């Protein structure tokens, strides 16, 4: 009852800065930029089942366990036992906190059946109980859940309203950070117009169902004297309590990495400048049904886990065991990674809950598991949940979320057969860094797959279409054959290859034959040359012989002549005749 006198005058002074108290509820403190106003009441309104009571309990429990602020829960609707049972499933041990005097729960029971009202009254009894509970543990936080029960239990609304006004003022004077829950009215924030009394901070919880899918949302309707996120933020209640997704904290501020990570398919790495994807980039594998998109993803997962990295696999079409089995059939065994705790499957139908819930559950996975890689297979199914625009905006948020965490993401997307680029893809293409397209190539009565890189930001990449073959040892990217009609694949490719082989053989044979002919000709030529040479030699010999004979004869003639001359020396002048002959 004593209260802190220092706080008593707080109402009149306009404090220069609003002090805030962290609620400890994940995400909410980011939206409110620090928490709810300290020493003031905050109104929490929402329909039935929107999570008001849980919000209140978590606010107190977090306060008691994380911020050293004991709290009092004044329950008008549930008993202390019920309350502690309800939050037990969230891992909060209320009885222990009560024993440690960190938490007090007071159940205020009002039964109109046994109450008669006559004459004037006030709520001093409630004040006394609150004061007693607050003082018994030195509480700094208090939750009133829900004060409106008083309206049902007590008549004379005039007195009641006056007393409520006094109650909130009194709580302020005691410096209690209070959360007052209230049922939402049809047109007003609260059925009883409590927003009239609590004007500092109003938080609205909403639980709505669109297309049979329930989504919880939270909105800070009003927060006097401080800026705050104004959007509707999706939230979930899971085994760890409340979790609000602060979407505004996302922007284009993520750091980029120049590190490269393998795609798990050597040929694909080769096509991507020889090194694979950039770390932290977003990869989209799109293609028609049965194109092998999941296999590309599985290769990536396998490679990542081999590097010792964690992967989260969001499967929207297949269950975990189904993916494992199917991948085993193409020689990729992912099971050891699951067992090692490197790979986690989150398999759920997109229609299981709303788009926001998917976003929140992804956020939860990213913060809990802290994976380096994320697979979403496939993203196209989200259109089944919301409109195309909603699905795109959610994907945008998801990509932002992933990028801001520096996570490498691989999405698959289903495209229709006729359209090369599906409509969804056009919608999100701006978000995608590397886009692989798997296409069916129908030729010669068979269907084959071709893969090419549609785009890959920031790296040199191949412009080739490769044939995409699923083998017992995973995906192989085979260089396609180029026929007269363009790219040929499958058995056509094989035929083309065979034909090429034959032609090559024939060409080789022809070449050899020609060489042989030439060889022959050379031999013939050589022979002829040799013959000519021999002929020539023979001629030379003959000529030499002739000359020798000539000389011999001449000598003989000369000697005959000289002897003749000697015999008749004055008869003839021999000299000029000899010179002429020479």
């Amino acid at each position, binding site marked *: *009852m004593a209260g802190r006198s220092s706080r008593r005058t707080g109402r009149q002074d306009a404090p220069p800065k609003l002090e805030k108290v962290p609620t400890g509820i994940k995400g909410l403190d980011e939206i409110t930029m620090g928490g709810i106003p300290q020493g003031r009441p905050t109104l929490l309104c929402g329909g039935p089942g929107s999570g008001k009571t849980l919000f209140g309990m978590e606010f107190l429990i977090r306060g008691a366990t994380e911020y050293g602020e004991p709290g009092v829960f004044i329950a008008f609707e549930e008993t202390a036992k019920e309350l502690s049972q309800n939050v037990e499933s969230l891992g909060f041990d209320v009885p222990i906190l009560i024993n440690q005097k960190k938490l007090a729960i*007071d159940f*205020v*029971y*009002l039964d109109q059946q*046994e*109450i*008669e*009202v*006559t*004459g*004037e*009254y*006030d*709520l*001093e*009894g*409630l004040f*006394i*109980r609150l*004061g*007693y509970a607050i003082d018994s543990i030195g509480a700094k936080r208090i939750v009133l859940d829900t004060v409106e029960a*008083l309206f049902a*239990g*007590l008549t004379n609304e005039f007195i009641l309203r006056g007393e409520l006004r006094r109650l909130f003022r009194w709580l302020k004077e005691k410096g209690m950070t209070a959360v007052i829950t209230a049922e939402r009215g049809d047109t007003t924030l609260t059925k009883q117009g409590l927003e009239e009394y609590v004007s500092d901070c109003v938080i609205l919880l909403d639980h709505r169902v669109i297309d049979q899918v329930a989504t919880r949302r939270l909105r800070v309707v009003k927060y006097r004297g401080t800026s705050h996120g104004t959007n509707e933020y999706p939230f979930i209640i899971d085994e760890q309590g409340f979790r609000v997704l602060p979407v505004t904290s996302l922007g284009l501020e993520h750091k980029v990495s120049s590190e490269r990570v393998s795609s798990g398919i050597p040929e694909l790495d080769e096509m991507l400048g020889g090194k694979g994807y950039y770390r932290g980039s977003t990869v989209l594998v799109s293609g028609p049904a049965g194109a092998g998109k999941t296999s590309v993803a599985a290769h990536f997962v396998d490679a990542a886990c081999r590097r010792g990295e964690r992967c989260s696999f969001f499967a929207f079409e297949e269950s975990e065991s189904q993916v494992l089995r199917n991948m085993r059939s193409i020689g990729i065994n992912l099971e050891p990674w699951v067992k090692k705790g490197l790979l986690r499957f989150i398999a759920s139908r997109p229609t299981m809950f709303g788009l926001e819930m998917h976003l929140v559950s992804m956020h939860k996975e990213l913060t809990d598991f802290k994976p380096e890689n994320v697979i979403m297979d496939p993203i196209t199914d989200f259109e089944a949940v919301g409109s195309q625009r909603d699905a795109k905006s959610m994907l945008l948020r998801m990509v932002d979320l992933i990028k801001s965490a520096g996570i490498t993401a691989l999405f698959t997307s289903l495209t229709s057969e006729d359209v090369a680029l599906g409509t969804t893809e056009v919608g999100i293409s701006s978000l995608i860094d590397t886009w692989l397209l798997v296409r069916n190539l129908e030729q010669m009565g068979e269907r084959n797959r071709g893969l090419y890189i549609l785009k890959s930001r920031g790296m040199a990449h191949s412009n080739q279409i490769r044939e995409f073959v699923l083998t017992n040892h995973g995906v192989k990217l085979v260089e396609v054959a180029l026929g007269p009609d363009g790219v040929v694949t499958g058995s056509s490719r094989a035929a083309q290859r065979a034909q090429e082989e034959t032609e090559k053989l024939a060409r080789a044979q022809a070449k050899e034959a020609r060489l042989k002919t030439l060889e022959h000709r050379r031999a013939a030529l050589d022979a002829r040359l040799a013959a000519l040479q021999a002929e020539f030699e023979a001629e030379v010999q003959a000529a030499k012989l002739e000359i020798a004979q000539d000389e011999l004869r001449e000598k003989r003639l000369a000697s005959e002549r000289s002897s003749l001359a000697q015999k008749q020396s004055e008869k003839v002048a021999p000299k000029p005749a000899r010179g002429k002959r020479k």
Partner: protein
Amino acid sequence: MTDTKDEKTGAKKPTRKKTTPKDRAPHETEWELRLYVAGHTSKSIAALNNLRQICEQHLAGKYKIEVVDLLENPQLAKGDEIVALPTLVRRLPEPIRKIIGSLSDTEKVLVGLQLRPREEA
């Protein structure tokens, strides 16, 4: 008026016997009333005065009034689920009944104490 009241109390008696008795033999102080107040406010003084008057008139000799000041014993508020003050609690005869306010309307108090039936409609 007194006749109808006697009739009604007479009619009430069997039901009370049904719910209360067995372990407890009817005493002269069959009515155990407890008035919760917070200090000596005008409302609490008025309530006590009104209560005494009504009891003397209708339950002479068979009632007991206990006044609990919650300013002195705040922990007692929980026991009888006290929210508003002043509150009159009929602890006996069972079942427990509560009447909130300064007890200014005698008719309503009598209805509340089940000394008179609730007016039809």
